[in-house]
């Protein structure tokens, strides 16, 4: 077979090839054959598997291997091959010549499947990005996107969505994200027209990322609210969507929704995606602080995240104690971290929460305290602390944060007795939310069950049908007899 011939010839004369190179090449060839079978049988699942296997091989890709694979997959003189090979660095001239020699002597020119061509684009792009050659990656990805606009096959969709992701990534790494916004919007339109749901999902996430990169929360929200929604196809894309949604909601002051989305994103994310989970957790912590609840210590002690979450841990500490001075010093100390995480504005909003928490502590500990003392304890550093304290306390009472009254004439704050929580409706409400959550989870799990696709198509053979009918008859007789017995 021609493949065997190539395998035996390739390792022998190539002096610079390491021992892993032939096996990587073999893997790539296996993947290529998987893609071919998938394309012919129109089974998208095989192509998804192929992509997954490629990701495992990512570390081992080298220029020679890629050249060899390109020669194998696409016939050397053809248009696509020339375009792709131009992006790869010409490391080993000798290697290249030999490869072309062998492949020319091989069997007839294969007409490459479009899937295979797009797959080659994907491989080259991944290689370039891993090698940090971002400008070439940019050029390669633009070429691939141009090529994709002409293809309209469902089996290409999976590969296409990965290509869009790397396209956006290469532009982001070179800092030109705004340029491709128009392209991404056009691609999203095309994907919607073709009912390419995975592509739609991926492109929507890429667009949201694009807008959020430039802090254009308004436009991101407008896009998100108008874009068509459907059941998520890919878990990773769904996680990303939830994270972006959480961010938008946080900025728009809708903290409850934001908390739900962010926590869900952190939970659903795969364990290997450490960076993503760290970001989700950072935002989730801030949202919980803004809502007035203190996250538990275990959140900060998750594996691998201790260092990254350290600034947020100290911040939580300051908010928990209710000390404005400490809060200010922590915010200044870690201001660079907060600015790079873009959470700086949110931290500024937390000042209000610090004051509230401090006030709550005071209200619980004292039955009666003068307003001047309140101002001193809260460390309000303003021109007129007592008057400020009075207004702040009045607003806190109105918002229901503390239960007290102010005696203006004497300048006191008098706390009321807190009643027994269990005699109110509070426990019922808390239980209800938890029950609803568990039931939703159950329903989602049932809906996510997947059955092998052809099981319902199996036609019963005549024999089996007779057998089944016989069994049913017996059962019916049995039940009838039972009924008679009882009477």
């Amino acid at each position, binding site marked *: 077979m021609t493949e065997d011939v190539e395998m035996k010839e390739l390792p022998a004369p190539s002096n610079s090839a390491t021992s892993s190179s032939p096996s990587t090449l073999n893997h790539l060839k296996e993947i290529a054959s998987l893609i071919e079978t998938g394309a012919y049988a129109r089974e998208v699942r095989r192509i998804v598997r192929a992509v997954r296997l490629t990701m495992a091989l990512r570390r081992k890709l080298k220029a020679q291997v890629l050249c060899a694979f390109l020669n194998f997959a696409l016939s050397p003189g053809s248009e696509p091959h020339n375009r792709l090979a131009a992006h790869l660095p010409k490391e080993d001239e000798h290697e290249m010549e030999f490869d072309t020699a062998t492949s020319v002597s091989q069997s007839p020119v294969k007409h490459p499947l479009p899937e295979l061509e797009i797959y080659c684009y994907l491989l080259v792009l991944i290689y370039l990005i891993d090698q940090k050659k971002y400008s070439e990656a940019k050029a390669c990805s633009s070429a691939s996107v141009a090529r994709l606009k002409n293809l309209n096959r469902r089996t290409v969709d999976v590969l296409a969505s990965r290509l869009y992701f790397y396209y956006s990534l290469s532009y982001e790494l070179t800092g030109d994200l705004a340029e491709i916004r128009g392209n991404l919007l056009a691609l999203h339109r095309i994907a919607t027209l073709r009912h390419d749901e995975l592509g739609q999902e991926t492109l929507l996430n890429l667009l949201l990322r694009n807008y959020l990169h430039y*802090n*254009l*929360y*308004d436009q991101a929200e407008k896009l998100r609210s108008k874009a068509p929604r459907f059941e998520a196809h890919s878990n990773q894309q769904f996680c990303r969507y939830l994270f972006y949604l959480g961010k938008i909601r946080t*900025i*728009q*002051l*809708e903290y409850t929704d934001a908390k739900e989305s962010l926590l869900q994103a952190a939970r659903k994310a795969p364990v290997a995606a450490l960076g993503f989970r760290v970001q989700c957790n950072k935002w989730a912590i801030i949202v919980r602080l803004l809502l007035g609840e203190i996250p538990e210590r275990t959140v900060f002690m998750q594996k691998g995240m201790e260092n990254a979450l350290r600034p947020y841990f100290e911040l939580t500490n300051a908010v928990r104690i209710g000390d404005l001075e400490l809060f200010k010093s922590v915010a200044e100390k870690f201001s660079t971290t907060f*600015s790079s995480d873009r959470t700086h*504005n949110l931290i*500024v*909003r937390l*000042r*209000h929460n610090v*004051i509230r928490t401090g006030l709550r502590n005071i209200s619980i500990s004292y039955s009666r305290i003068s307003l001047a003392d309140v101002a001193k304890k809260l460390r309000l550093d*303003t*021109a*007129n602390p007592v*008057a*400020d304290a009075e*207004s*702040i*306390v*009045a*607003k*806190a*009472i*109105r918002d229901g944060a503390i239960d*007290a*009254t*102010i*005696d*203006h*004439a004497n300048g006191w704050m008098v706390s009321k007795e807190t009643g027994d929580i269990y*005699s*109110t*409706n509070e426990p*019922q409400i808390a239980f*209800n939310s938890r*029950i*609803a959550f568990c*039931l939703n989870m*159950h*329903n989602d799990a049932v809906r996510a069950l997947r059955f092998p696709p052809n099981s319902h198509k199996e036609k019963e053979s005549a024999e089996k049908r007779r057998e089944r009918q016989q069994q049913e008859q017996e059962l019916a007789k049995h039940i009838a007899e039972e009924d008679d017995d009882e009477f």
Partner: protein
Amino acid sequence: MDPKLAEVSQLFERFKAACAREDVDTCCNVLSKLKVLLTGFSSLPPLFEDTPNAIHELTLARDIYEHAVLLSVKIGDQDAFERDFFQLKPYYTDASSSRLPPSSQEYMILGLNLLRLLVQNRIAEFHTELELLSSTALENPCIKHAVELEQSFMEGAYNRVLSAKQTVPCKTYDYFMDLLAKTVRDEIAGCSEKAYGYLSVSDARQMLLFSSDNELLQYIKEEQPEWEIKTGQVIFQKAKESASCKEIPSLQLINQTLSYARELERIV
């Protein structure tokens, strides 16, 4: 120079003169004419074509819109402000990065917009706009003023809000500060209702910033009919609170229990 450009510049000079004279009607007329003429330029948003006079045209258009915004503040028309500001915004965000020199009034107008959102209680949009500002913008006194105002408002330190009226960075802010004062007064009234059992009339007058007792009485009669005035004291209604604990929200409980039953039945 391009004849169209010359015409627009001339008209703009007339507009500025009318503004200085405080002649509001002429201003509005001339402004509408200017806006119509501006549609003739293709270098403006949304087209952003690269014509030879592009920079000149963009700068001129931006000045016109800035004056339009300031005019709308003067006549107190908030809708016109919003419209003109939205038209002005692309000049600050998109055009500035490429070609135009920064405008001297940019920060003042941005601060005005933030203040307007605060007064209209559109806090979510306030924060969204805030995100768009760079850190250098946040150091600018006009914008810092608006941000600190929002913080004081959120915290509830209303006296700080009212004292900030004295420290406005520029006179155009006065219009919004007056509106804000009115909102603050309503807030203070609401808070006082819940926080105090009663207040002496003089204290109430001081807190709500009325200059005389009569104004206070009028305010109470119009806005707060539940407050009672007895022997020189304002008494806030508080009796309604405790009665509600004894009821059971039966409808809610029934709904919840029914939904549990339905979901549990679905479990096979």
